[in-house]
């Protein structure tokens, strides 16, 4: 039986592995979320900049606002790993 062969080392290693998976999921999923959120903003921002170059600064600013989501994911991942 697998359960009987599970030593402390194996348990620790799998706990570490699960943590790594969790960290990966945290960054990956939030990255997807940020991408989806920036999709619409980015398209509109490029359109606005094409019409009026002065919009560039504001357009860039609006586009990076959803970046916070992936930053939170990164923070959670870092806290999980260290």
């Amino acid at each position: 039986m697998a359960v009987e062969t599970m030593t402390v080392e194996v348990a620790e290693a799998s706990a570490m592995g699960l943590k790594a998976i969790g960290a990966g999921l945290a960054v990956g999923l939030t990255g997807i979320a940020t991408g989806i959120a920036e999709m619409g903003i980015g398209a509109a921002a490029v359109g606005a900049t094409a019409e009026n170059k002065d919009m560039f600064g504001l357009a860039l600013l609006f586009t990076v606002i959803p970046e916070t989501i992936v930053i939170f994911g990164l923070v959670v991942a870092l806290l999980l790993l260290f």
Partner: protein
Amino acid sequence: MSRLLIAASKEQLQPVIRELYRRNIFHIEDFVDQKEEAYEGFKIGMPLSGAASVSSEVLRVRSVASSAGIDAASIEPAARVPAGTLRSRIDNELPGIEKEIQSLNAEKTKLDTTLREYGQKIHDLEPFAAAPLPMELYRGYERFYVFAGHIPADVALSVPHEKFFTDKVPGNFLVAIVPLEAKDDVERTLLDARFQAVAIPEETGHPADRIAWYTTEITRLTAEIDKLSGRLAAQKEAHSAFLVACDELLTAEVEQTEVPLRFATTDEAFVAEGWVPSEDVPGLIEALRQATGGKIFVSETEIDYDRDAVPVEYDNPSFSRPTEVLMDVYARPRYREIDPTLMVSLVFPVFFGLILGDVGYGLVLLAMSIGLRKIMKGDAAGRLFDTLRNASISSIFFGILYSEFLGFALPWSPVIFSRHLQIGGHGGGHGPQVAELMIMSVWIGILHITLGRILGMANARRLYHGSHATKVMMANAGWLATMWGLLFIVWSFFALPLMPDMTAFPVIAAGFNATAVLGAVFVVAGVVAIARENVLEVVELPTILSHLLSYARIVAVGLSSVAIAMVVNFIAIGMLIEPQLETLSPLGVIIIIAGLVVFLLGHVLNTGLGLLGGGLHSIRLHYVEFFTKFYKGGGLKYHPFGMKRRFTED
């Protein structure tokens, strides 16, 4: 800024305009005919005489300059030309230069068109070169029809015919001459075999000879066009300084002749209103008196800050001036508002350095910003590179504190918290102090936001009046109280590293100890103060948490940059170069070179990412988390009437 009203009779219009233009400090407030009581009987002025001819001259100069490809911004001003001599040169020399450049351009365009035509002809003739027929045999028949075109494979025709087929050219080539009455049958057969007809060129002689002739013609034309381009370039070289000077002089004249359109006038007099920096007022009044011989009335009028759009010019120490570019991207401050440029110019580099704290990357960016500053022209670009220079100096400073050089550890242990990750056995030490770094960044957030809210209170006093100002100030204080109250409650329940430990105080009521109760009181009072200004603001309460945590990006983005650097080092050195160095072999040398390429590309990529991450995230923390607390912006840019002359002088 002071608001000036200038009134004089119309004879003084020209000297007044010239003096205002020369001084380049008077921001004109356009007169709009709105039937105001004070301006009854005033009309918008007419341009000075000669406006039409000067504008048509400026158009001519600009068209010549653009057809010669001259760009004023890219020309280094040499000695300035006096306006008088330039004026006579415009009359004498400009028509000649204009004719020369335009005829050169026209000739070049003509040759370019012919060149393209000949290229097309060669393209059309190419398939026929495979067939052994001179071109005149393809046309001129009364009883025959000629098919010529590409076909995937040869076909057999059922009618009497002459046929030529070759598969030596791409797409194969088929020529068939058939009697006119069989044309339809043959066409059907050919189309079934996927035949694609090509037009028969109107040429005589053998196609190969014609192609050779056109090719020599093209060589000749190219040489001629090169010669023309050379002459055009010589013209540009010889006259660009003159043309940009003309452009500048005439533009200045156009602006001066058309400015009465922005003044209020009656039949005999005119009134100009506008803004002048307060310290320049006495000098300007004196100059205008002298220019008109005292026949002028100038008075300083009172400013109504709620109604008047006061133009805004920055007034910052030279250290902060480059950062004004970052402010203008967001919005120029209003006239009475606190200008946060100085704060941004100090805090932005610190954030940048905290994120990209690496001596190596800092040095690369420093060299890049100084180098590009020299190459790139233009005010905005220059200021941006100056900002980058300050940021990279801060990056080097924090790199020394973090003890990092391109992801490697420097010979000392980190002075502040370590960011050294355990990747590929490098780093060593006790690993990254992520929790401490995180809390440090939240502390930065707490202080930054507190500063923002305090500025918000100060701004409320400057921008609003009476009870509204008090309410806005109270609301800002309320936000502060709520944030600190929540912090007190958190500190009373959890002992966090690097933060005050208040868990030890005795419990008073419902599990709350003294500091927690104090915190709760703060929160309640704060929420009440916020709601008194605007009840809807209460739904914004969660932003306290999200904005504070948002500062964690300082650590998160920084650590990801460190991680990329260390991974690059591990792949390049640990996996590719080091194992090969032990036993050197010919293949090993190639792998070592590959390792060096990986090292270089990886760090170039990471420098780019670090610049983007460090720059964007630092400025975002200012725009979103800091400015939303106090900054309104939307001030009018101070745009004085006049010109910074580069090529001419009065």
